[in-house]
C-alpha cells in the first residue's frame, strides 16, 4: 500500500518536515530531527529504486487526476538513480552539517537554516520525480530560492553578493525555462513530458518549437553552469557554508543535468536534438572549452574552495561531453559521472569543510603542513584528488574510461586526447595542494581545533565509497547503462 504512494512521499516528507523545524526552534532538537527526516527520505528512495529495478517504471497521479490534465509523478530507471543520489547525499551530509553549522551559523538561526535546507532537498527531489514540465519549473524555483538563502547565510560578507549574483542568473535561467515551457504549451497544448513527446511537431514545420528548444537549452545551461554561463558558480560555492557547498555541488548541478537529459531525449527526442539541431556539434566545443578553461583557472587559485568550484565546472564539462555523443556509451559515461562526481566532490568539499572548521581558513597557506596536522582529513582529500585526476581504482577513473571509450567509438581522437590531457591539468592543481600539505611546514600562527568524529565519519564514508565504486563498478555502471538505454529508446 505504501509502495503506491512512494513517489509522492519522497517529496512530501522533507517538505512537511521543514515547517516542523521552524516550530521546533531548539537547535539540538532540530538537528536530531533533520537527521531522522533525511534517513526516512533516503529509505524512500531506496524502496523506489528497488521497485523500479524489479518492476519497471512506477507512476503516481497527484490528486487522482489522470495525466495529461493532472500532474503525474513518474519514476523510471534514470530518475530512480538520481533520487538515490540526492537523498543519499542529504542523508550523509546532514550529520556532518549539523556539526559544522555550530561554527558557521548563529545558534538562533539553526532551525531556520535547516528548515530551508529541507525545502531545498524537497525541491530537488521534486524536479527529479515529476513528469510534468511545469511542475519541474515550480520545484526548480523552490530549490533555487532556498539555495539562494542557504548560500547567503555563509559567514563571509561576500556570501550575500554571491547569493545575489546566483539569484539573478538563476532567475534568468528559470525565466528562460518558463518561456520555453510556455512556447511548447502553446504549440502542443499539454504539459506532461510523455505527452509532449507524442505531440511535438517536427522542427521544419514550426519555428516556435525551435525557439522553445533554444530557450530551454540556454535556461538549463545557466543552471548547469555550462561554459560560458558558469560564472555564478565559483563564488556561490566558495562563500556558502561548508555543508551547503558540499550538498549543492553534489546535487544541484546533477539535477540540472538530469533536466537537460529529459528535455533533450524524452521531450524532444534523439532525432530532433541530434539530427535537426546538431547538438553533437554544438555541445562538444562548449564542454571542452569549459574543461580546459576551468581546469587552468583552478591551477592559479589560492582559495581551495574556489579551486574545487572551478574543478566542478570542469567535471560538468565531462558530463555534457558524454551527453553530446548521443550514444549509449556516451550517455552511460555522463550518467555514471553524475554518481561518481557527486560522491567525489562532496567528499572533497567535506574535507575542506573540516579544514575550515579546524583552522578557520581555506587558502593555500592554511593547507601547509596539513599532512602532519590533520593526516586523516588530508588523506581523504588526497583520495578525492586522485578521483579527479582519474587514477585507476577510483570512481573518477571509471567515468573517464567510459567517456574516452565513447569518444573512440565515434573516432573522435581529439576529444579522447583532450580528456587525457585534462587529467594532467587536474594533476597540476591537485598537486599544488598536495605539495603544500605534505612538503611544507605548518604555519605556526594558525592553531588547529580538533575535528569531531561526527564530521570525519561522513567524510570517510564518502571517500571509501569513491574507492569502493571505483573497484566494484557494477552498481553505478549498471544503473547508468539502464538509464542510458531507456533514454535512447524513446518515450519513458
Amino acid at each position, binding site marked *: 500500500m505504501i509502495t503506491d504512494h512512494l513517489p509522492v512521499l519522497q517529496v512530501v516528507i522533507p517538505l512537511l518536515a521543514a515547517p516542523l523545524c521552524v516550530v521546533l526552534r531548539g537547535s539540538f532538537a532540530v538537528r536530531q530531527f533533520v537527521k531522522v527526516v533525511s534517513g526516512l527520505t533516503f529509505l524512500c528512495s531506496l524502496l523506489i529504486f528497488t521497485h523500479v529495478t524489479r518492476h519497471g517504471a512506477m507512476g503516481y497521479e497527484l490528486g487522482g487526476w489522470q495525466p495529461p490534465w493532472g500532474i503525474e509523478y513518474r519514476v523510471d530507471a534514470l530518475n530512480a538513480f538520481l533520487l538515490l543520489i540526492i537523498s543519499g547525499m542529504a542523508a550523509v551530509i546532514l550529520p556532518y552539517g549539523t556539526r559544522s553549522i555550530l561554527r558557521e551559523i548563529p545558534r538562533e538561526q539553526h532551525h531556520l537554516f535547516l528548515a530551508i535546507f529541507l525545502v531545498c532537498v524537497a525541491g530537488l527531489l521534486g524536479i527529479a520525480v515529476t513528469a510534468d514540465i511545469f511542475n519541474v519549473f515550480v520545484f526548480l524555483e523552490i530549490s533555487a530560492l532556498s539555495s539562494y538563502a542557504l548560500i547567503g547565510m555563509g559567514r563571509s560578507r561576500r556570501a550575500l553578493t554571491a547569493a545575489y549574483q546566483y539569484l539573478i542568473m538563476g532567475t534568468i535561467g528559470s525565466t*528562460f525555462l518558463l518561456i520555453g515551457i510556455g512556447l511548447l504549451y502553446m504549440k502542443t497544448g499539454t504539459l506532461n513530458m510523455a505527452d509532449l513527446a507524442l505531440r511535438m511537431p517536427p522542427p521544419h514545420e514550426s519555428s516556435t518549437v525551435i525557439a522553445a528548444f533554444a530557450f530551454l537549452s540556454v535556461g538549463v545551461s545557466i543552471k548547469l553552469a555550462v561554459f560560458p554561463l558558469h560564472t555564478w558558480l565559483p563564488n556561490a560555492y566558495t562563500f556558502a557554508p561548508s555543508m551547503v557547498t558540499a550538498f549543492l555541488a553534489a546535487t544541484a548541478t546533477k539535477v540540472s543535468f538530469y533536466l537537460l537529459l529529459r528535455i533533450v531525449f524524452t521531450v524532444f527526442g534523439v532525432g530532433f536534438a541530434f539530427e535537426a539541431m*546538431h547538438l553533437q556539434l554544438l555541445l562538444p566545443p562548449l564542454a571542452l572549452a569549459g574543461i580546459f578553461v576551468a581546469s587552468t583557472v583552478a591551477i592559479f587559485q589560492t582559495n581551495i574552495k574556489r579551486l574545487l568550484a572551478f574543478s566542478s565546472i570542469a567535471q560538468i564539462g565531462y558530463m555534457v561531453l558524454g551527453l553530446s555523443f548521443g550514444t549509449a556509451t556516451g550517455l552511460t559515461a555522463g550518467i555514471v559521472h553524475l554518481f561518481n562526481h557527486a560522491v567525489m566532490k562532496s567528499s572533497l568539499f567535506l574535507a575542506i569543510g573540516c579544514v575550515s572548521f579546524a583552522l578557520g581558513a581555506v587558502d593555500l597557506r592554511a593547507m601547509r603542513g596539513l599532512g602532519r596536522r590533520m593526516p586523516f582529513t588530508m588523506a581523504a582529500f588526497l583520495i578525492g584528488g586522485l578521483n579527479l585526476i582519474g587514477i585507476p581504482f577510483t570512481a573518477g577513473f571509471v567515468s573517464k574510461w567510459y567517456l574516452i571509450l565513447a569518444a573512440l567509438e565515434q573516432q573522435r581522437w581529439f576529444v579522447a586526447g583532450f580528456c587525457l590531457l585534462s587529467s594532467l591539468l587536474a594533476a597540476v592543481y591537485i598537486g599544488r595542494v598536495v605539495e603544500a600539505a605534505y612538503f611544507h611546514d605548518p604555519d605556526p600562527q594558525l592553531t588547529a581545533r580538533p575535528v569531531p568524529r561526527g564530521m570525519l565519519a561522513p567524510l570517510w564514508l564518502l571517500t571509501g565509497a569513491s574507492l569502493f565504486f571505483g573497484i566494484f563498478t557494477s552498481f553505478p555502471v549498471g544503473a547508468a547503462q539502464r538509464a542510458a538505454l531507456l533514454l535512447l529508446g524513446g518515450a519513458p
Partner: protein
Amino acid sequence: MTSLPPGLLMILAGLACLLPLKSKRARQLPQWLLLLAPLLSLLHILTLPLGAEVTRTFLGMQTMPLRVDALSRLWGLLFHFAAIAAGLFSFTLTDRRQHAAALAYAGAAIGAVYAGDLLTLFLYWELTGVTSVFLVWAAGTRRSVASGLRYLLFQVGSGVLLLAGALMQFSDTGSIAFNATVLTIPGAPFLLLGFGIKCGFPLFHTWLQDAYPESTPTGTVWLSIFTTKLAIYALLRGFPGESLLIPIGLVMAVYPLFHALIADDLRRVVIYNLHNQLGFMVVAIGIGTPLALNGAAAHAFGGIFYIALLLMVLGVVRQQLGTSRASALSGLIARLPRTAIYCAIGAASISAVPLFCGFASKALILSAAAEAHLERTWILLLFASVGTVLSSGVRVASAFYLGEAPDTAAVLEEPPRVTRLGMGVAAGFCVLIGVFPFLLYRLLPFEMHYRLFTLEHLVTQLQLLTWVLLAYIAVRAAGLLPHSRPAALWDTDWFYRCAFPEAIRVIGGAAWSRWVRALGALRRVMLFVAERVRTLHDAEGVFGRTWTTGTMVLFAAIFLCLYLLVYTFWS
C-alpha cells in the same frame, strides 16, 4: 597463493615503511623490510609455475593480472636479484621515505612484468613513475625538486600514451591483451611511444640525464635498475622485430657517447652509458631474430648489474669525497682498495671484457646483427662498443687506477660490510654470468644454440679492447683528450628548459650571432604564450575573476541569441 600478484608484497612492504612507529626497535623496520621483502617475494615467484595465467573481468574487459612465461619469469628473477643487491647497498640508510619509495617502485616494476594485459600494465607503469619520483625528490635540493617535476611529467606522459594506445586497441579489436603487435594496429604507435619514452628514445630521453644524477647516492642506484629495463621488457614483448627500432636504437647507442666523453661528473658519464646500453637493446629488439631478442634480454640482465655496480661505487666515492667529478678524482685505489676492485669489475663488464657479463650479452647482439647481414648496423654497434669502453670503462677506472692519490687529510673509509655485500652481489652476478654464461642462456626466452667461448670471439674482442686501450693511452699522453666539462653538451632538453638566461647569454658570447638571435626569438615566443595563458587564467584574469552581474547577464542574452540563430538557420 598462485593468484597473488607478484609485486604486491613489495608494494605493501613499501607502504608499511611509512607507518609512524615510535619505539626505537620498530624504527628499524623499514631497513629490515628492505632486505626481507625482496627475498620473500623471490620465493613467491619461484613457486609460480611456467605458463600460469590468471584472468579477471573489470569494466567489461578481459584482463590478465598475472601471466608467467619465460620472458616475464626472466625479468621477474632479474628485478628481484637487483632489488636484493640494491637493498643491501642501501641498508645503512635511515630515511624510511626512501625505503618506502624504493620498495614500492620495485614492486610496481615486478608487477608490471607479470601483467598480461595493457590495463594492468598501465596501472603498474604509472605506479613506477609516481613512486620513483620520490627517490629523485629525496635529495632535497632545489634542483632535485625541479628535476623531479620534469621527470614526473615524462613518466606520467608515457603512461597516458600507453593508456591511449590500450584504449584504441580495445576499441578496435575488443581485446586489451598485451602481446606482440605491429604499428598498423590502431593504438600501437602510442604504445610504442609510451614504451619508448620510458627507455629513452631520442628526443624524449633528456629526463634520464636530468633526473637520475639529482637523486641521492642510493636513490640513483634504485632508479637505474627498474624504469628503463621495464620499458625494454615492454618493447621486447610488444614490438619484436619492428624495424623502426633499429635506427632509433642506433641513435640511442651512439649519441650519448659524446656527452659521456666530455661530461665531468662521472655519475652523468655512467648514466649516458646506461643510455648507450639501452640503445644496444633496442637495436637487438628491432633485429627480431631469436638470437637478437635473446641478446636484448641478456644485455638487460647483465646491464642492470654493472650499471648499478658502477653507480654504487660512485655513490661510495661521493659519500666519502663529496664529489664524483672526474677532474677531481684520481688514484683512489690507494685509499679505497676494496671499492676499487668493484670498480674494476664494473668497468670490465661494461667494456665487454671476456669473462665478464657484458661480453656474454654484447656478443649475442653483434652476432645477431652479423647473421642478419645488417652491415651498417653492425659497424655502428661495434663503433658504439668502442665508445663505451672509452667513455665509461676507461674513464671511471682511471679515477681509481690512474693518477696520484688525493692528498686530502680526510679519512677515507671503506663502506660498511653490508654496503660492500650489496656491491659484491652485483659484482658477483657480473662475474658469474661472465664465466658461466650458460646459466643465463638457459633462462632466455627463445630457442638458440650459441657458443660464446670460441677462439674467434675471444681473440677478436681482445684485439679490439687492447688496441682501444693503446690508442687511449697515446692520446692521453699527448694531452689531446677532450677537456671534461661540468655539464657537457646541449641536449634536446634545451627546448623545454630554455628558462636559463645565463646559458643563452653564454651562447651569445660566442661568435654565432644569427644562431643566437634565432634561439632568443623562439624563447621569447614560448614565454609570451605561457604568459598569455597565465594572465587569462589566473586569479585576476578574465576567466578567473568574478564577473559583474551585468556581464553575466549579457553573456546569457548573447548566448540565447546565438542559440536561436543557430537553431533556426541550421536545422
